[in-house]
């Protein structure tokens, strides 16, 4: 009897140890490790791109945003476009009318939300972010959308979104971090203007932006806005000037990009 109990305890301890050993290393553990295999190093590179897109993904990024500006906390925060979605790709999307693999999905983000250049499918940056997405998706069910994915859909408030009211809410709640002119500060990313996402980005939809704002803003005091206030702010943001949609003709897009690069360069030269 005693021996059986001892054996059971032993087996349980062994199982526990196995689980500990097999558990996914955290990003911090990966950073501290001296030797990484190709997958782990790729995950770490992907994490770095997501956190500091303008440093590690600079070749293809085109504005002042990083992936983590919208995929909050490196894509780990629920209801803020979490990145644990590897299991639901490939899937058809109405946006481009084709079946999207995770690679094309990531490349689209560079083109729209980051207002940059679409990297090729085999670009190391794309492969790295794909590896990071896979890493975050551990434990999810393949083919089943994860819980709290995307952003919540707000219920019908019974009233239309009202941009002027949104402007007052913006000034009261958002401007402290995002700046009065919406061009961002050290504490928060730009919301409109040349350094923000372009008109083709997913967040440029009032519905989606409202869900994101209600669930995640302001940081530290989330879900304090009413549904109607979130909708109003989203409508206000939607009316602001931002880079063109790259699906519209290329001329203005090309001129805009050259202007953007030159103005950045001028600003750097002036410093």
């Amino acid at each position, binding site marked *: 009897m005693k021996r059986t109990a001892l054996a059971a305890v032993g087996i349980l301890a062994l199982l526990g140890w196995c689980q500990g050993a097999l558990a996914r290393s955290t990003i911090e553990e990966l950073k501290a490790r*001296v*030797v*990484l295999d*190709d997958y782990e*190093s*790729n995950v*770490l*590179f992907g994490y770095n791109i997501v956190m500091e897109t303008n440093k590690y993904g*600079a*070749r*293809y*990024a*085109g504005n002042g945003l990083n992936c983590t500006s919208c995929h909050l906390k490196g894509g780990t925060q629920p209801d803020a476009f979490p990145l644990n979605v590897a299991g639901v790709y490939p899937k058809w999307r109405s946006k*481009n009318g084709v079946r999207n693999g995770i690679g094309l999905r990531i490349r689209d983000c560079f*083109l729209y939300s980051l207002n*940059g*250049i*679409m*990297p*090729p*499918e*085999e*670009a*190391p940056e794309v*492969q*790295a972010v794909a590896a990071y997405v896979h890493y975050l998706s551990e434990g999810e069910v393949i083919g089943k959308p994860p819980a709290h994915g995307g952003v919540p859909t707000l219920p019908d408030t019974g009233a239309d979104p009202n941009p002027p009211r949104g402007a007052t809410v913006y000034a009261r709640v958002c401007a402290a971090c995002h700046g009065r002119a919406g061009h961002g500060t050290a504490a928060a990313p730009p919301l409109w203007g040349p350094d923000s996402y372009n008109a083709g980005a997913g967040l440029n939809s009032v519905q989606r932006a409202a869900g994101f704002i209600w669930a995640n803003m302001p940081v530290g005091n989330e879900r304090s806005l009413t549904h109607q206030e979130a909708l109003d702010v989203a409508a206000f943001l939607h009316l602001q000037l931002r880079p063109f949609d*790259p*699906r*519209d*003709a*290329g*001329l203005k*897009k*090309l001129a805009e*990009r*050259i202007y953007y*690069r*030159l103005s*950045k*360069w001028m600003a750097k030269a002036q410093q």
Partner: protein
Amino acid sequence: MTPAAYAALLLREALPDFSWHRRVDVWRELIAGLLGAALVIPQAITFAYLVGLPPETGLYCAVFVGLAASLFGNSAIVGGPNTAVSIMLSLAVMPFAGRGSPVYMEFVLALSLMVGVIQLGIWLLRGAEVFRYFSPAAIIGIKTGVGVLLITSALEGALGLSPLSTQFFYEKFYLVAVSWDELVNPYSAAIAAVTIATGLVLKRFWPRTYILAAVAVGSIVGAAIYLVQGPLVTQIELLGHVTFDPLPIRVPRLTPQHWLFMEAVVPQAIAIAVLGLAQTLVIARDLKARGAGNLDLHKEVLAQGIANTMSPFFSTFAGSGSFNRTSVAIEMGARTPLSGLVAAGAVVVFALAFGPLLTNLPMPAIAGVLALVGIGMIEAREARLLLRSRVEGAVFLLTLFTVTFLGLDVGILVAVLASVGFLLAGMSKVGFVVSHDGELERIAVSGNLFYASLDRLSRHLHATPAARTLLDLTRVPYCDAAANAMIEAVRRERHAHGGRLDLAPTGA
């Protein structure tokens, strides 16, 4: 040489030598340097693409490898990114890490460090002498083979394909020919075709700067297509933002993982080091033949070694001397390292000034440059000259075949073996003329007498043991121990059979 004299010699070579300032023509050097910087930028981006690293690393290679090579060298040889070295770096690292990933970059840097250190070792061992035996046929064979490899590797970028990996290069052409309608992106193909066609046409009129013009025309066509159709329809790959840092200092990481990698690629590192030096020294030989400066080959080896050893500390990969840019510099009147120093500085200025414009450079135009450089390396005229001679033609074809079918590293080995083999075969030919003066047989020998060349003569001498022979060795420059032993044996045999063997002119 005594150790002290050897050390003094090394020290004299290792210190940068600015004695060229007395013979410098500043204006000519300045213009050659500026033109060189303009020419190297598209090439640097292209070769970085070939290595599999971001474009700025190619620019760093042009700046820092070029700078070190000019600082420690004593000639107008232009150092920087090099086709063959780039291909071999990529091929060596590819089995160990995902192309372009941070680990891949660390491995390329570690390999570059190895290449530099091996080259420094070659300098210490006075290895420059060995490269004299590299036959021109083998060098042209390697160059032509690299040209073919370049055109093949340009194919994917030019046609907008995903990377195709095939065992032999011609399979790639076959795949494209069979299913071009599914694989080829017509927009990319059009840009690449325009770039290549422009280059080929303008090459006749502007032999120095045609690549720049081709890139410009290709980019304009690319921009036009982009304007009409937009990025989503055309799917044209663009270069992207080039983050040029004027001082990209970095300490190469050397963990146990890196040591394991370095242990595994020692043969490739040696091959790259040898290939890089071979190219630099062939350029040097060429410059000497043209009378463009008094070159010290050992010093050029050292300069290349230092440049490549330093390269990983400036976030870039190994390079070597560049055929095409050196010949442009020489044509523009450069005779001293000043042009190289000016070029390195000018690349920094150009990259900072025009960096924003490079962002929209279409990759098919870059692939077009790759193809143009490849076409430029295939020298049909020289190859035809070589094919007239049976031996040189054979070395050329053998090298070309191995490089294109078995890879550059095998190709270099075969090139060295074939050069040395045919050299020995040529040396081991011994002619002898037999004349009779009454009973006395006179044999006049010409050629080197050594273990490999004795056979025919010894058979002749042993055939008539009772004859009286006078062996005339006045036209034998070299006679080794085996030859002496053979002659001694024949003499003893003659003595036993009543014959005689005497050596002229002493008659001893």
